[in-house]
């Protein structure tokens, strides 16, 4: 029995094909044999040129037009069948030698070899020796008759050549047959067995036999069953007589099986499937009788034939089952070739069991890919893959097949196949394999890889399982902005247009492009996060893994990963796009267990989908403790040409910029172009919170640096002012130590520099100007504001300093000086609190700021007051510091508090004067009354405005360390402190009194005091301040006023309003005890002139003098004070005096004036 049995096989002429000469490499041998074997059927018509018909040819009536001669080529020859005399189809009638010339240089040897080989086939009527691939030396050799050398040429001409040779062979066979028939004698008729009648069906008859001719079919079946019956009867006889045909070892079953196979092949059609199946199953059952070891070959052939016939019938599972039987028979033989055959047979069954190697369904795979591409929604899994998931549940059978493939391939020493089988087994069925089995597979993978050359690729992935985790966008990718070519501000087009936050149109457009789009830039690295899982019980070392990109415009960077048993790991895979275009990433290339494989994401997605529905064995990620399956849709990735890439660097450190509250600092920002394209345009704007903390940006600096060439950089300054901590922040800071609190910069409160920039417009090939996308760089200004100096309290203090005599008062010259320069001096003297000695500082107002330094650095505080646009540093009195040291900065140590005094009196007049000095052309006369009138008439808002203007002129600046400086924000505190008595601070009094000495009645000495519109208040605080008089001044005064001398004095009254003031003036003098010296009963002072109820009228902005003389009887200290009762006071005056009723008398009182009277020596 032999493979390929059919009804026609009886009519075929058997030709032995024998390799001769030197060893032939098996692929070559396969090629040569295939070249010969393709001519199994030679048309009779084509034989005509080679066939010389005999005169009395018995073949004249053969169907020369349509008939054909069947040849059956048996590679390697066959043992002569004992039946060949009875069934001449078993006889080898021709011998063909095949020689591979490169391995057989000696042609004589080849010829001798061939003759030897052909000798074992005595029945051969014709012989040919074909030699292939001649060397140059052999070509030039003399042509030989016994060896036909095929000249080296392409496959097609080789085939033509071979056809000619076979036709020649067939023709010579035919002529031999002719001779034989002519010579045949009637006595020599060959004995025919009953089975030989089968082969009497000529080829032409079979050809004519329509497949659907029921009559013929019945005839065939009838003959078959008759023959079987006859045969069985004969067998019984034979068994009885033990003499049948005198042949011993012919199993009677084989003929029956042969016949059954012939019939099955003949009937093999779908409509007759049941009948054929029954025949084949019957034959398979009948083979049970073939238990003898020598029958193994018959069994093998039987199973092969059954498998083939089932395959033809479309019963792929049964075909696979019998193929596996074949493989098992092969595996019973202990040699590598049998194992190879077993492996190949098993490989054919893998499709039926759905464990096929991906190598074999590469074509399917490609078509799937096209389907997938045409399928718009990528989330849907192709139905085909779902089906394969279902089929994969025949795990018992699948594992057996894979294990057998693994075993046979190891025995056949095919490391790649065994690697592939082990990989498939491990990947698909790891949950069903014991840990020991898993390790065994891992080691067989390793062993196979050891025998493979390095860098071998296998189509079947093994471990680990890889799924796409996410697409982390590099900051630079995220900031690619499409340019709107119609706008100068091209970056603005990206946002939603129109007044509505929600528009149905934009929504529709967004959902239409639901697929995420990612832009990658040539030359800039990108990253993809994948998740690897090793669900097996051994340590998995992934030697390298990188993204697989088929479009060839991506350089992937490999990384190596080690996965402990039952773990999963997320890995960032990176790479660089190299060319403009689209990129699709179907999976990863993995170098693991010594072999390179490609792992496709969609396969794992299918698997996970199946696992989520409970259709497959296990979810490799979940059993590794990874999170639940979420489908990550792969974005469409397009690569654009290189863009400029700005990198911002805040000079002085990456961390946050630590600022004390109110601190003002310049921060330098360096922009570096890290790209390969110059930055041609840019725009810097602010975004985020606390934008007002950025005072200024040095736009001109960076603008002048454009274009920024690749590698170029520009540094520009941004001026920052720290914002003020809210109350909650302050409290939080207070409760914690400052060191900790300063680090707690909160997220989301920082301003950003939004830098939009773009490279040059590219000229496309068609002449259009295409705008490559621009970019956005957001530079966060990480400002960390910490508590600086803290204002504990602000309050208003009053202080009264009486006026005193000085030497200057004596001299008219000095007085003149004083008049002309007094105010200037007051203004110009920068740092000292200047008190006009004529007027004193009755009712001096001081703003006291109590500051506390909770930080761990030292602060220096400066108070500055802006006047008339010039920065005049006024006065600073620190607590515990003498007046003359006031110009120095106040240093506040850590954890100390300090008080800063700001005198308000001294810039009161100038402040108010400021607006009037201009109008009055340098007049020194203050026009306060006018101002007061205006201020009082105006609404409260105006008052507030003036308060604000006053407050805004007071600036408390601080310095700390080398480069920290800022300003305290104390406006609210000052305002609260000043609110109550703002009028007293801002407005001058309506009348100003001053005393002067008049020597000899002409020269005037001065003692001045100021009147206050609010005598009740004024007398309050510092009534006893008279003692402040310094001894030095007192010494000087000794010479001036002596007791027992007439002292001529004058009181000057100045009207500070714009209206005439009429009044009753009174002058009082008190001694140190406070007794009134102008009393009738007093014996200490005598006087001349009117001292009380002096009726005076003072014109607006004018002075009136009232002379009088005093005569001190007792030396000592006296104080003079002038006061006026205003007659018919105007509303302004009443308001200024805060009169409560209209008939209340308005009294103006000057500040006390100290006189030291010395006795005569």
């Amino acid at each position, binding site marked *: 029995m032999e493979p390929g049995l059919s009804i026609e096989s009886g009519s075929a002429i058997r030709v032995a094909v024998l390799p001769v000469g030197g060893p032939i490499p098996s692929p070559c041998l396969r090629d040569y044999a295939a070249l010969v074997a393709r001519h199994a059927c030679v048309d009779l018509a084509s034989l005509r040129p080679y066939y010389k018909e005999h005169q009395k040819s018995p073949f004249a009536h053969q169907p020369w037009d349509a008939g054909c001669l069947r040849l059956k080529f048996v590679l390697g020859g066959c043992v002569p069948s004992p039946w060949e005399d009875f069934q001449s189809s078993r006889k080898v009638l021709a011998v063909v030698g095949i020689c591979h010339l490169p391995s057989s240089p000696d042609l004589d040897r080849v010829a001798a070899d061939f003759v030897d080989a052909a000798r074992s086939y005595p029945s051969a009527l014709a012989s040919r020796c074909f030699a292939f691939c001649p060397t140059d030396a052999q070509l030039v050799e003399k042509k030989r008759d016994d060896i036909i050398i095929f000249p080296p040429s392409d496959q097609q001409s080789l085939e033509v050549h071979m056809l000619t040779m076979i036709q020649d062979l067939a023709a010579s066979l035919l002529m031999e047959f002719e001779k034989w028939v002519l010579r045949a004698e009637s006595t020599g008729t060959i004995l025919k067995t009953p089975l030989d009648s089968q082969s009497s069906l000529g080829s032409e008859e079979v050809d004519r036999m329509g497949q659907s001719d029921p009559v013929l079919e019945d005839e065939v079946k009838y003959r078959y069953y008759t023959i079987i019956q006859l045969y069985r009867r004969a067998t019984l006889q034979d068994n009885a007589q033990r003499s049948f045909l005198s042949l011993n070892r012919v199993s009677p079953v084989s003929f029956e099986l042969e016949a059954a196979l012939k019939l099955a092949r003949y009937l093999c059609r*779908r409509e007759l*499937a049941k009948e054929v*199946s*029954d025949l084949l*199953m019957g034959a*398979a*059952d009948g083979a*049970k009788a073939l238990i003898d070891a020598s029958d193994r070959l018959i069994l093998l052939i039987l199973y092969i034939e059954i498998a083939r016939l*089932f395959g033809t019938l*479309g*019963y*792929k*599972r*049964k075909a696979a*089952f019998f193929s596996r039987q074949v493989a098992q028979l092969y595996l019973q033989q202990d040699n590598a070739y049998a194992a190879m055959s077993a492996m190949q047979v098993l490989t054919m069954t893998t499709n039926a069991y759905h464990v096929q190697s991906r190598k074999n369904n590469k074509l399917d795979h490609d078509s799937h890919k096209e389907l997938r591409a045409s399928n718009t929604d990528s989330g849907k899994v192709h139905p085909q893959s*779902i*089906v394969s998931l*279902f*089929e994969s*549940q*025949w795990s*018992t*059978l699948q594992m*057996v097949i894979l294990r057998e493939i693994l075993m046979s391939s190891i025995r056949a020493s095919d490391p790649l196949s065994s690697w592939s089988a082990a990989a498939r087994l491990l990947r698909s069925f790891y949950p069903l394999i014991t840990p020991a089995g898993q390790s065994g597979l891992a080691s067989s993978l390793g062993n196979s890889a050891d025998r493979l050359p390095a860098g071998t690729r296998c189509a079947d992935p093994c471990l680990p399982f890889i799924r796409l985790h996410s697409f982390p966008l590099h900051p630079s990718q995220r900031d690619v902005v499409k340019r709107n070519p119609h706008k100068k501000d091209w970056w603005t087009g990206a946002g939603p247009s129109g007044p509505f936050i929600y528009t149905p149109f934009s929504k529709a457009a967004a959902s239409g492009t639901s697929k995420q789009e990612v832009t990658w830039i040539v030359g800039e690295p990108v990253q993809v996060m994948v998740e690897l899982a090793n669900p097996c019980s051994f340590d998995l070392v992934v030697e390298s893994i990188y993204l697989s990109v088929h479009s060839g415009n991506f350089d992937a960077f490999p990384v190596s990963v080690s996965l402990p048993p039952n773990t999963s790991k997320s890995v960032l895979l990176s790479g660089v796009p190299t060319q403009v275009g689209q990129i699709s990433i179907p999976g990863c290339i993995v170098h693991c267990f010594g072999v390179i494989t490609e792992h496709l994401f969609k396969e794992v997605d299918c698997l996970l989908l199946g696992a989520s*529905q*409970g*259709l497959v064995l296990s979810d490799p990620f979940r059993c590794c403790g990874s999170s639940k399956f979420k489908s990550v849709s792969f974005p469409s990735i397009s690569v654009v040409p290189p863009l400029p890439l700005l990198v911002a660097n805040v000079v002085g450190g990456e961390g946050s910029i630590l600022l004390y509250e109110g601190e003002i600092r310049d921060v330098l920002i360096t922009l570096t172009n890290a790209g390969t394209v110059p930055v041609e345009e840019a725009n810097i704007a602010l975004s985020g919170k606390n934008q007002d903390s950025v005072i200024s940006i040095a736009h001109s600096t960076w603008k002048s640096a454009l274009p920024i060439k690749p590698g170029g950089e520009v540094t520009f300054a941004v001026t920052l002012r720290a914002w003020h901590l809210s109350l909650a922040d302050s409290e939080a800071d207070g409760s914690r130590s400052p060191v900790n609190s300063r680090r707690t910069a909160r997220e989301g409160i920082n301003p950003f520099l939004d830098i939009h920039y773009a490279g040059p417009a590219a000229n496309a090939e068609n002449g259009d100007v295409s705008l490559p996308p621009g970019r956005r760089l957001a530079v966060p200004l990480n400002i960390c504001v910490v508590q600086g100096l803290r204002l504990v309290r602000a309050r208003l203090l009053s202080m009264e300093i009486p006026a005193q005599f000085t030497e200057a008062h004596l001299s008219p010259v000095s007085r003149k000086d004083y008049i002309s320069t007094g105010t200037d001096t007051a203004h110009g003297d920068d740092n000292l609190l200047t008190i006009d000695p004529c007027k004193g500082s009755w009712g001096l107002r001081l703003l006291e700021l109590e500051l506390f330094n909770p930080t761990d650095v030292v602060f220096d505080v400066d108070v500055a007051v802006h006047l008339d646009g010039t920065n005049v540093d006024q006065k600073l009195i620190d607590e515990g510091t003498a007046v003359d040291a006031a110009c120095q900065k106040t240093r506040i140590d850590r954890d100390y508090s300090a008080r800063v005094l700001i005198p308000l009196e001294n810039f009161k007049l100038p402040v108010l004067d400021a607006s009037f000095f201009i109008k009055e052309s340098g007049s020194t006369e203050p026009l306060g009354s006018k101002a007061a009138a205006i201020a009082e008439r105006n609404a409260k808002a105006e008052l507030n405005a003036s308060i604000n203007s006053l407050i805004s002129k007071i600036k408390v600046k601080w310095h700390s360390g080398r480069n920290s400086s800022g300003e305290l924000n104390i406006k609210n505190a000052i305002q609260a402190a000043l609110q109550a008595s703002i009028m007293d601070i801002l407005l001058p009094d309506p009348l100003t009194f001053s005393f002067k000495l008049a020597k000899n009645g002409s020269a005037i000495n001065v003692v001045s005091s100021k009147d206050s519109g609010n005598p009740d208040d004024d007398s309050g605080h510092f009534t006893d301040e008279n003692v402040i008089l310094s001894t030095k001044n007192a010494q000087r005064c000794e010479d001036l006023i002596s007791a027992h001398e007439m002292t001529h004095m004058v009181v000057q009254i100045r009207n500070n309003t714009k209206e005439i003031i009429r009044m009753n003036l009174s002058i009082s003098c008190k001694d140190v005890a406070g007794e009134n010296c102008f009393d009738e009963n007093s014996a200490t002072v005598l006087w001349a002139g009117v001292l009380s109820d002096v009726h005076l009228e003072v014109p607006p902005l004018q002075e009136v003098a009232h002379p009088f003389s005093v005569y001190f009887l007792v030396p000592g200290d006296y104080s003079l004070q002038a006061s006026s009762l205003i007659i018919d006071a105007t509303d302004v005056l009443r308001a200024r005096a805060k009169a409560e009723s209209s008939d209340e008398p308005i009294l103006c009182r000057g500040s006390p004036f100290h006189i030291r009277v010395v006795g005569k020596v």
Partner: protein
Amino acid sequence: MIVCVAVVGHQNNPLYLQSFTEADDALKLHHIVHCSLDVIDERVNNPKRSAPTLNETFLGLLYPTENYKVYGYLTNTKVKFIMVTTDIDVKDADARNFFRKFHAAYVDAVSNPFHVPGKKIASRSFGSRVSTIVKSFGAGTTV
């Protein structure tokens, strides 16, 4: 005697496969059940044209193999029931009856709201019910 019963889903995925023999022949029975799908596929793809068989669920003897006979049953939802028996002479009526009970048990099992369609049936009550049916089949033939 029934040696094996199986339920195969509409995608030819095994849903339930249970053998009732002592011998270690699970692989062989798997193969027999798997191979029987060829016949069922063929019947499904080439339905007989005659009207009475259109709604017929019982497929009859699928094929004989070695000592076994394989019977099949196909529901409207293309779920297949397969029975492998060693009995030489099985009456069609008995086989039909068996499959009807088997089908009912299957319907009850998949009506469980916790059952995932397409997943293997792991219900123990289904298993015990099936073995009862299998035993009663053997009893029926002997009686």
